[in-house]
């Protein structure tokens, strides 16, 4: 296996008396796209937020590039880019201003041509670049956030329901982009309940149910993971 970039080992998270993650284990290698699939309340977002350091695990370990989320979260945040499900940037700033602001937060300086190139890469129409983001559609906001993630050149990407609310063309563009990034060596961890999308883009899929990994699917010789197989397992869990 390639270099281990993201590792969950016996990860447990509890809110009050409720166990949200129960002995979760997985490893994601460099250049791999890993999708964590599950229904509502399965624990997908909790897993992601644990790696972002906004939720502390009660036991077990979560590491990114060998750094513990409980000890080295500031160092981890310099290495990861995060794409939330619903991208809400600052409405009073333009798309370009938002990108500059967030890059500055990450202590990253990029030239105007670099920013324009990233915006073209995510296919955000040029006329929108200098308009306040309050006028952006959800898809346009999503593209801006992806451009931001690209500009950060982070070796690890955490994506929360990345294609939620995007039109089919935008989803295809997004999937192509993710594959390209992975091919260039980026590690992608995404949580989703979109079985089809996950199968299209992921190298491996972990099926999460009631805080436990109940299935693991991977691309073998095919171009993508078998949707039918994953769908069947997902439906079976949903019916339980």
């Amino acid at each position, binding site marked *: 296996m390639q270099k281990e970039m993201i590792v969950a080992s016996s990860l447990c998270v509890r809110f009050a008396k409720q166990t949200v993650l129960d002995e979760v284990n997985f490893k994601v290698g460099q250049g791999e796209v890993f999708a964590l699939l599950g229904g509502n309340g399965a624990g997908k977002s909790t897993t992601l937020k644990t790696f972002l*350091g*906004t939720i502390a695990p009660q036991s077990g370990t979560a590491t990114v590039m060998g750094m513990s989320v409980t000890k080295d979260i500031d160092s981890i945040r310099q290495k990861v*880019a*995060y794409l939330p499900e619903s991208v*809400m940037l600052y409405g009073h*700033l333009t798309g370009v201003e938002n990108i500059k602001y*967030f890059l*500055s*937060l*990450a202590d990253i300086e990029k030239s105007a041509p670099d920013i324009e190139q990233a915006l073209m890469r995510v296919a955000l129409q040029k006329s929108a670049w200098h308009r306040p983001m309050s006028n952006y559609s959800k898809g346009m906001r999503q593209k801006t956030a992806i451009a931001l993630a690209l500009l950060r050149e982070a070796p690890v990407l955490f994506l929360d329901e990345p294609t939620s609310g995007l039109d089919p063309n935008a989803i295809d563009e997004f999937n192509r982009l993710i594959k390209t990034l992975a091919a260039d060596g980026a590690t992608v961890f995404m949580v989703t309940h979109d079985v089809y999308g996950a199968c299209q883009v992921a190298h491996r899929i972990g099926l999460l149910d009631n805080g436990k990994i109940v299935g693991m699917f991977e691309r073998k010789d095919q171009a993508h993971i078998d949707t039918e197989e994953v769908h069947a397992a997902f439906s079976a869990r949903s019916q339980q």
Partner: protein
Amino acid sequence: MSAFSNISREARFLVKQRYFLALLSIVLLLSVFSVWSGISETKTQLSTIERLQEKDDVDRANVLAKQSDYGSAAYYTFHLTHSAPSAMAFAAMGQRDIYPWKHRIRMLALEGQIYETDSDNPELSFLGRFDFAFLISVLLPLFVILLLHDLRSAEREAGRYDLLIATASKQQRLWLSRASVLCTALAIALLLPFVIGALIMQAPLVSTLQVIAVVLGHILFWMLLTLWFTSSKVTVKQSSAQIASVLLAVWLGVTVLVPVASDIAIDEMVQSPNGGEIVLTQREAVNDAWDLPFAETWEPFIATHPQWKNYTEMNSQFEWKWYYAFQQVGDQKAAAISTAYREATFEKNTLAGRFAFLSPPMLAQKLLSSIAETDTLAAMKYEQEVRDYHQALRQFYYPLLFGNANRTETQSNQTINNKTTGNKAAFDPKALSKLPKFTTFKNTIDSSKENI
């Protein structure tokens, strides 16, 4: 990235937010209004003193011109005493709204003249005048709460929080930079009109810097309190409105409840007579004296003024020296209660200073009043000046009234002879030209204190 870069980034970010600029504009307007209102009140008080001073001189000259004896001259003339506002008073009117800062006194018993306008309402005085001190002590915490209460929660509610902290290289630096920019802008909006006001009033540099330090200290306290609370785990699932409610409750507690509770506690701890009791005691003593044998007046008077014991013979049923002696005795009878009142006022002020450490707004107001010389101690200092001046009037008139015009009380003390009778001095209007004036008297006292 340097701290300056962070501050600069947040400044550029916040300056584009309209609500922030609108709030700062309101703060600036309030500060301008408070400073203008303070300067206006200070100038009004100064011009009132100046106007009264002129009229007082003219009035006294007119009255004295009509008199034919020293007793009438002492009785019919009024003397203006006043406490002029300091150059910094525009920032904090303080106790000048409660304690009188001007009197027109006569040679009569003093206690009633000092306390007849006595009033006491610390709750109203605290939430009273809209001056710079009120803006800083009462409203400043609200501005800080308004600006910082939703520092994190607004980002959570807008769905940006996770993205922000996952992007920021140092999370704490982000919130601290943003809070610093907000509070720095607030400080500028509050202090700019004040500094201009201080220049207009030619306030001393040290006092100006002290006021600035109090303002910055008060901002810092509320900034740290709000940052601490909004970063605590309890607020993670609270809405901005809930966080604001808790912080407003804290503000209400330390701004209103603690001062009012402190006032009640201080009143319980320190028993004090009121001004009315002093006035009543003194006036009853004076009124009763008319019906008492002369000896009842002379005995207590001579006990404190032995130099006049050989000048007490009465040649008629009314003599001015007797009249002023029982005025003096009226003051002597009220002296104990008056001293108790002043000691209680001083003790209350000391305790209020200690209780102020439970209430930063109260502490800020006390500090500002102290810097502006408008606090209780300044009022007590003026009251003492009035007493000293009144004493000087008595020292001036007694030799004239007791027929020993060429002697001071001290000289009379030293050369007291065995004369059993004394006649009043022959009236010489020129002798009244040496009548002490409050302003001259006060300047003499002040300069002698400076020399010491």
